[in-house]
């Protein structure tokens, strides 16, 4: 459905996406993960068939986006990272006009706009100017707008940034349902729980390159241990203590505010720390998550 080979995008001398390869299958839910500036949005824009690649190959629905952009875009739903609603139009006009750009009939749009207003929970704001909406409402409208053409591929660039927890869960639920209907999802996110919930498969990107690829469970298995022990000794002492406990677990990771000990059994490692005569201010044992995979691969935490 989507196939990238050595896909590259440079801006002048700067290489934003550096020869990446991946394939997305029909009906799959595919995630792009990575720190700020990793090249996620740049990749999304190329898939959205607006941004022209610098080199490499890209095929979407069997077509080359550099040559057949409009044709491909007819089947895509694109939620950009930044909302670009028409501020002067009302909420329902935004949906309607956007639908007209797809060449959809007035009759079809009349009911479609109603459905989407329900979906975005904006029915009572239908007549408000879109600039009068709150940030989260604008986000919901942008997401609803991208569904107006009933896309085969639905692309969301950080869809839930700015949404409250309830709106987030409603969106997840809706995305699940779209997926059940056979829609292919491509999602970028900074939220690991979102990635674990939504994505069948994902790539972790950093500095324009792919660092790892797989299902959330596979990634955790290959790049992290089963459990993680988090200990805090106070920011001034963490580095010093780290020297003493180096060698514990499979691996340790020192962050400014805490030390992470990766191990099969977190409690056992904590006992060893106590044996060394060290008393952490706080300690916590948890299961490994994508967050840890991310830290391992990029040397950075996700939430900056």
């Amino acid at each position, binding site marked *: 459905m989507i196939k990238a080979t050595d896909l590259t995008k440079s*801006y002048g001398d700067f290489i934003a996406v550096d020869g990446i390869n991946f394939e997305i299958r029909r009906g799959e839910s595919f995630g792009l993960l990575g720190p700020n500036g990793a090249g996620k949005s740049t990749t999304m824009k190329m898939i959205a068939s*607006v941004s*022209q690649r610098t080199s490499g190959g890209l095929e979407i629905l069997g077509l080359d986006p550099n040559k057949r952009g*409009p044709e491909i875009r*007819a089947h895509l739903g694109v939620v950009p990272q930044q909302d*670009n609603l028409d501020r002067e139009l009302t909420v329902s006009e935004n949906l309607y006009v*956007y639908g007209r*750009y*797809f060449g959809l009939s007035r009759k079809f749009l009349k009911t479609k706009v109603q459905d989407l207003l329900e979906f975005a929970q904006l029915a009572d704001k239908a007549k408000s100017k879109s600039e009068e909406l709150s940030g989260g409402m604008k986000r919901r409208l942008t997401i609803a707008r991208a569904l107006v053409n009933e896309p085969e591929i639905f692309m969301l660039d950080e869809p839930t940034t700015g949404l409250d927890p309830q709106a987030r869960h409603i969106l997840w639920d809706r995305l699940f349902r779209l997926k059940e209907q056979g829609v292919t999802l491509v999602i970028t996110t900074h939220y690991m729980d979102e990635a674990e919930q939504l994505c069948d498969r994902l790539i972790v990107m950093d500095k324009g390159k792919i660092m790892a690829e797989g299902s959330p469970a596979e990634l955790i298995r290959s790049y992290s241990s089963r459990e993680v022990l988090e200990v805090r000794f106070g920011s001034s002492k963490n580095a010093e203590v780290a020297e003493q406990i180096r060698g514990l677990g499979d691996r340790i990771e020192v962050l400014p505010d805490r030390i992470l000990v990766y191990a099969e059994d977190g409690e056992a490692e904590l006992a060893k720390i106590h044996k060394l005569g060290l008393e952490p201010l706080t300690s916590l044992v948890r299961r490994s998550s994508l967050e840890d995979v991310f830290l391992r691969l990029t040397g950075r935490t996700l939430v900056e």
Partner: protein
Amino acid sequence: MRHMRKWATAILIFGIGNPILYLFSIGLGIGALVDANSGGAGVDGVPYLTFLAPALLASAAIQGAQDETVFPVMQGFIWDKGFFAVNSTPVSSRDIVHGVLTAALIRTLITTAIYELVLLGFGGITLANMLPMYVTAILAAMAYSCVMVGMAGYASENGSFMEVVQRLIIFPMFMFSGTFYPIETTPIYLQWFGWISPLWHATDLSRAISYGHSIEPWVLVVHIAYLALWAVVGLAIAYPKFAKRLSA
């Protein structure tokens, strides 16, 4: 003191009101003086208002075209980023150029028509000449729109580009297009501003229609060809620039 008030009013109108209105009012004012001083002979062998009206009509059309292109393009690329939203649908960058031009054309058709009716009311033009003059003004406006859409495509976020274009190109062009007095009376080193200005070409053409201001047939062809050239050059700038900017 009285003087200053007068200037303040002029600046105010220039700043917030329609500059055309301003042109119109000083045009009529000067016109009365010119006609009085030249013993009724006016300019170019006709009353000053008759001389002025074709120029005002062309200015109105071109000024309208300016407002209806530069602003929407800046809005689409910079302020609202609406072009990017539209470009994520099957609509192509060329379609967007055409869309902006069509919208500008529709508005210019209306405003120019109103303006022409006003001129008719003042006796600046005759009913019989209305249509050909209208067509001329619209042709000039469209040619100018194409170039402005292309130019505005280059305007960037920090946004001084259009201001520079305005000050260094557009303003002198309007000043020296033979609007208020025949271009031949301008010093020769300033006349070339008029020659490159679509406003002068449109004005000269319109004067020929309106009161038989004499021009050689080949000049007539040059006027029309020059306006067409502006349209072609404008599109040649706009198409690739829009495509590039939308696909960055």
